[in-house]
């Protein structure tokens, strides 16, 4: 009962927040935060529930962004269609990269996904005839469906909110199914999982593809939001950011991931006061967070509730 009320309150806050906050800048941050939440949720599927560290996340974000950019610029593809296609293309890319990579584990998997991501970035940088290389692809139009046009921070925010809601729905349904149970089993003990009849490779591939589709969808919206895509969308910086969000927020928990995503979107912005030392402080904070928050923020929150004497929610 308490969690139902809590959910309602959170939903209300989230819906009303941008209306309450002053000005475009804060709404802009909310849009970014939402996009990062979407990416982070996909990443957490692979990290928190499957137990593998993929360092190629930025590449899938970029694939989604470039797909939308190319479709809208060259074929005037209308709104939800390009989003769906971006998701599809990213899913296929996830499949193509996942099949060879998921045979590996641990550090090898991390490094090979990093390698693939960097190759994709090099392709974006050098395949000038299609991607215009470092000059990027500008003039990506805003989404337009019938009379509805999404071209303000506020409207983008609600679009992103819908997508995040869908992502959370998908994640929860997945987790409560045979696929989700299989994922967790693989994370906890892969050999035992196989001996209980779980097709480990297939399950890993499913989780990986779905996670990457989230990233691709985020990339697609991002491309529209900033009207411009260039190879920096595939830079490792985004991957590091997403990894930080999930690990510091708390892997394997939706609430933790959301919290981490919001925190890490707002943090670099608020650190702008420190001007050039901004990312220096960010790096230091990241190291500190990893050392002092072993279970992430979510773990901290969970333990503080236990200490407070209430029943810990599952």
């Amino acid at each position, binding site marked *: 009962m308490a969690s139902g009320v809590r959910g309602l309150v959170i939903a209300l806050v989230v819906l009303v927040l941008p209306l309450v906050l002053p000005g475009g800048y804060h709404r802009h941050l909310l849009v970014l935060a939402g996009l990062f939440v979407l990416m982070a949720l996909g990443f957490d599927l692979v990290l928190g529930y499957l137990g593998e560290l993929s360092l190629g996340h930025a590449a899938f974000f970029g694939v989604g962004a470039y797909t939308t950019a190319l479709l809208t610029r060259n074929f005037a593809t209308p709104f939800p269609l390009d989003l769906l296609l971006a998701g599809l293309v990213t899913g296929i890319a996830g499949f193509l990269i996942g099949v060879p990579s998921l045979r590996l584990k641990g550090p090898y998997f991390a490094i090979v996904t990093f390698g693939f991501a960097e190759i994709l970035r090099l392709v974006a940088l050098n395949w000038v005839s299609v991607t215009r290389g470092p000059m990027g692809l500008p003039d990506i139009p805003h989404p337009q469906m019938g009379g509805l046009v999404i071209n303000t921070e506020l409207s983008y925010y609600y679009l992103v909110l819908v997508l995040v809601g869908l992502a959370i729905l*998908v994640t929860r*349904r*997945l987790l*409560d*199914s*045979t*696929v*989700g*149970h*299989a994922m*967790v*089993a693989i994370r*906890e*003990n892969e*050999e*035992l*999982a*196989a*001996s*209980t*009849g*779980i*097709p*480990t490779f*297939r*399950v890993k591939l*499913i989780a990986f593809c*779905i996670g990457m589709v989230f990233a691709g969808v985020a990339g697609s919206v991002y491309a529209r939001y900033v009207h411009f895509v260039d190879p920096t969308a595939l830079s490792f910086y985004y991957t590091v950011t997403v990894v930080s969000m999930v690990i510091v927020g708390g892997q394997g928990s939706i609430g933790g991931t959301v919290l981490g995503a919001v925190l890490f979107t707002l943090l670099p912005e608020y650190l702008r006061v420190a001007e050039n030392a901004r990312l220096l402080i960010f790096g230091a904070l990241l190291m500190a967070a990893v050392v002092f928050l072993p279970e992430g923020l979510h773990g901290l929150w969970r333990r503080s509730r236990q200490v407070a004497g209430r029943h810990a929610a599952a």
Partner: protein
Amino acid sequence: MPLLELRGLTVRFGGLTAVNDVSFSVSAGEIVGLIGPNGAGKTTCFGLITGFLPPSRGEVRLQNEVITGLPPHVIARRGLLRTFQKTSLFPRLSVHENVMIGEQARLSRRVWPALLRTAAQRRQMTEVRERADGVLAFLQMSALRDVEARALSYGEQRQLAVAIALAGQPTLLMLDEPAAGLTRAEAQRLTETIGHIRAQGITVLLVEHDMKVVMGISDRIVVLDHGQKIAEGDPREIRQNRDVIRVYLGESGGRA
């Protein structure tokens, strides 16, 4: 037609032949014990049968279908489930969740039904939850339902491992040293449990060092030494078999 059949099963690691031309069969409803001194190749046999290890030669048949070379999860889905010599669980999941995973052994893992949350899918998951509770009740572990697997005592953990395999409704249950490290009382309870399992129509093949358990419960016993089968028969015959006695008393291993 035997339930499980090994024909000339052989595996070599470099220069060492760990399992050498081993053949035996297990009939439905039997409890067969696989014994032998340390290093005889018993656990290796388990690995060969369950698909974790590919044999150099020979074949394994389950219900007269060849399963040699199939991946472990496929063999599991055909009804052959096992426990491991070294306790293997899902450490951070609760006892109930551990058993739920085992319960889903033969279920399909499809994404769309999961995402669309069809009524059938929801019903399926509810059944999984309830049946897992049923398995816990059968093994008298219901009190431990929500305890994290890694917080259990050693004996409870070994019991959980059996529960996980049992939950998958195996046709053949393979137990690797289920009595290892158990107290006398726990071993006695294990013997009773295996009897109950057989009463449910499940065939059992077990590797075990504890002679009291093996002799007490097996219908037939197969003896391995240095990778080869040296004897096969009912417990009485095996106890009197010269080769078996020599192999066990002739070395300082062998727990009584």
